[in-house]
């Protein structure tokens, strides 16, 4: 199965099985990354699933959508490589994607 690589807030490195068709947020949650709250359940209404993409994946993953872009502004840790993980649908093209869980706002 394709893998998602995760760097947690404590700096732990995890490689998680990532089913195609699920969002990166769901994969983080199901992979036991507790610190991802994802309070709105993935409907792009909060910013509690914020991650930073490994810069070399930015082009392939693409930029945030308009609402997502606004929501990211609520974070003190907004960076050029910020995304809300609920808005990234995982597929085989993203096998090996590396994300870092953003610090708590």
């Amino acid at each position, binding site marked *: 199965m394709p893998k998602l690589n995760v760097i947690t807030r404590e700096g732990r490195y995890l490689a998680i099985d990532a089913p195609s068709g699920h969002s990166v947020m*769901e994969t983080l949650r*199901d992979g036991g990354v507790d610190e991802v709250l994802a*309070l*709105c359940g993935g*409907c792009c209404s909060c910013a509690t699933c914020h991650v930073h993409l490994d810069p070399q994946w930015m082009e392939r993953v693409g930029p945030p959508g308009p609402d997502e872009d606004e929501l990211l502004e609520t974070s003190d840790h907004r960076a050029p490589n910020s995304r809300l993980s609920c808005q990234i649908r995982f597929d085989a093209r993203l096998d090996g994607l590396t994300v870092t869980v953003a610090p708590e706002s």
Partner: protein
Amino acid sequence: MEPSYDVVIVGAGHSGAQAAIALRQNAFDGTIGIIGDEPDLPYERPPLSKDYLAGDKAFDRLLIRPEGFWKERGIALELGTRIVAVDPNAHAVATDNGHTIGYDKLIWATGGAPRRLSCAGTDLAGVHTVRTRADVDQMKLEVGKVDRVAVIGGGYIGLETAAVLSQLGKKVVLLEAMDRVLARVAGETVSRFYEDAHRARGVDVRLGVAVDCLVGEDQVTGVRLSDGTILPAKLVVVGIGIVPAVRPLLDAGARGGNGVEVDGLCQTSLSDILAVGDCALHANRFADGDWVRLESVQNASDQATVAAKTIAGLKAEYNAVPWFWSNQFDLKLQTVGLSTGYDAAMVRGDPRSRSFSVVYLKRGRVIALDCVNSTRDYVQGRRLVLGRLTPDAQRLADPAVPLKELEG
């Protein structure tokens, strides 16, 4: 010997689950047991009236954590079990099947039960509430066989359910006792906007109507209004709020009434008993310190985190800004703050454009925003609410002026 846990959490919803997760995150290494009255693992409730009812999301995708997670974190789940009594002196709770469970600390996270209509006919087949997975699964079994649906209650749950059912091709009538929908939670502009949006999609919205009873033999066949009109419907959804599930705690002597009172650390008046989420009556900074109960995921999660920290010996007072969302049709409503008690409301943008926001003020200070398809205002307005700022009214009403420019 009776089972016991260092922390017993009563309720396996959003707040109960988050309390357990946050305890472990804060390095609490005692035993934890979650007692839930539903048979399911902790799951997200908001999709019940949205994607789950629509059939767009399978149940396993609503799980707050996968099954294996709870075992890995050493969190015991006792599901399908209701707590019927609390003995604060003995530090024990009693279950509906006659067992007792001991605790050092108890977190009450039971939420509430749907308020029932007080009229005849509420026990008929085909009458539904929207609170649990079982409620919605039963509704989904029946919905394919009916053409006409009556939704009683024009709050978020009623409106969201009406939106999904009308999108499933049902003829929906929505009945609201007040003279506008969302009357308890939003200003008139937002109410009228949602009434129009529903009507434009074919929902028959009726305001200021009183339900006399539900009619039918065994199966509901319609709703009779106080003026004698009978609206035919073989499926009736009742969405008229919840009653906080706090009876056992109040019986044990906890202070409360409409919910159980908690302080800023989520502690009840009974020692070693905390309460969080929909059932917790608390003095909220964003309600000018008034006592409120908030029925939201934000409140459930943030209070649960506070309670966990209290138990872990970290003092973190609850003072998070309230926020809410509601998805209906292609409309995304995002709310920040609490608008109760506002004395002025400024509309930014034209509701006919389907993207606008309403800023609620109290004595010149921003206390809340309702933002429809307007995430920018929601995000930027949040800072106005947090700071209880007093922006210039004329500029506030000008949608061309970004809210972030009004922070000064």
